[in-house]
């Protein structure tokens, strides 16, 4: 996917991206300050917003194969199970009840299939939204902070799932997170946002550990990441 000369104004804010390449089959991390435009870019890709100028080249990707989980996931006024199977239902696919049960169990929500989704705790709601996105095998998945606020076991489970599906299906992932350790554990490429612009975009190692861009350096200073731990991650 290529983003070319994209410009979008919302209120006072302007998102402006001259050129951004989103390689297929990679896990991309978007980082940057609050209000720097990360979610706005995802919405543009998702077609929720339309750009003022410029365009996005989907390169054969069908809009139905793209999905996005939101920072505040929208849950249907229905049970957990109905929420998870919704994207399958509208595709006429038969849901695999057992697999969904297994997913729920793996992230500590065993037996909650029939609970009203909106009565779940907020972390549990995020998990439902993640499982919903995993179940229908989209080719391009955008995760907007849905992995934060989860307990460590669940984070581990979903990270494994993301890596596994990418392996098997070769699909593309795009994550927003303010936890740099998430980003460091998962991403192949990282794109750093600053006030509506992408100030750096490149391989994770380069951006996270060897950046020369002052905004990026300032942003990363908060959390001390260990490059040696990063090296070990693919073992």
């Amino acid at each position, binding site marked *: 996917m290529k983003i070319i000369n994209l410009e979008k104004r919302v209120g006072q804010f302007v998102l402006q991206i001259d050129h951004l390449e989103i390689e297929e089959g990679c896990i991309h991390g978007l980082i940057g300050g609050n209000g720097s435009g990360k979610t706005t870019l995802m919405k543009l890709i*998702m*077609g*929720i917003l339309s750009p003022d100028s410029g365009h996005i080249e989907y390169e054969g990707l069908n*809009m*139905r*194969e*793209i*999905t*996005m*989980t*939101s920072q505040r996931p*929208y849950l*249907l*006024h229905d049970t957990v199970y109905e929420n998870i199977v*919704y*994207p399958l239902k*509208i*595709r006429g696919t038969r849901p695999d009840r057992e697999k969904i049960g297994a997913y729920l169990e793996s992230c500590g929500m065993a037996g909650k299939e029939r609970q*009203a989704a*909106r*009565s*779940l*705790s*907020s972390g549990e*709601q995020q998990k439902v939204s993640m499982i*919903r996105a995993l179940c229908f095998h*989209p080719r391009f998945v955008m995760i907007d902070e849905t992995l934060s606020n989860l307990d460590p076991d669940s984070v581990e489970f979903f990270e494994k799932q993301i890596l596994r599906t990418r392996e098997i299906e070769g699909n593309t992932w795009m994550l927003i997170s303010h936890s740099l350790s998430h980003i460091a554990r998962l991403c192949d490429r990282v794109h750093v946002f600053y006030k509506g612009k992408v100030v750096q975009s490149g391989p994770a190692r380069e951006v996270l550990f060897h950046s020369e861009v002052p905004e990026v350096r300032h942003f990363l200073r908060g959390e001390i990441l260990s490059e040696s731990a990063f090296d070990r991650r693919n073992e």
Partner: protein
Amino acid sequence: MLKTMIEEIFSDVGVYDAIRVTFRMAVTSTFISAVLGIVLGLALERFSFPGKRVVVRINRTLMGVPPVVVGLIVYMLTMRRGPLGKLELLFTVEGMILAQTIIITPIICGMIYTYGNKTAPAVRVFAKTMGAGKLQTNLLILREMKHEIYFAIVSGFGRSISEVGAVMLVGGNIKGHTRTMTTAISLLKSQGIFTEGLTLGILLLVMAFLLQCLADFFQKESKENENY
């Protein structure tokens, strides 16, 4: 049993027929208005266009259109010399349904628009992320707004069974044909037979209540327990 009892009490206004006509008219016109109102209301919420605010205001003004006026308009349309004269709708239940639909559609449309403003945008965004098509998106909006839609329909139905001005004019209050419970009440009233009119009114309300209990049974308005 009940039928004969009712007939005995209100023998001279043709109550049994009036009940039949009332519910036939109310159910049909509410159904048509619900379909039109929901489609128009959601469309109005969905699309932005110049003059939209004026359209919304006109919609809201039409929610208060006097039934007599609608009655007059429908009369003038459906009379033999009128543009729809060929359809022979005057003094028929179909004509009454037409008038009622004109009255109720703006009400349902206005309510759906107002509720939709709060609910639909988020659902539409969600539907997009799920890859839902246009039809599926709209079905999902209906599903997520089901309580509000049910309420709008109940309101429309209430308006429909209670109306008298338009129905009287277009239907003609013809005994056994176009007499409804409300026009029967009006007639009883004009004859000074107040308690019988009142009894008939209460009968109407009781039946509306029972119908709603029935509808509620399918609707299962479970108290949502959201975790804020």
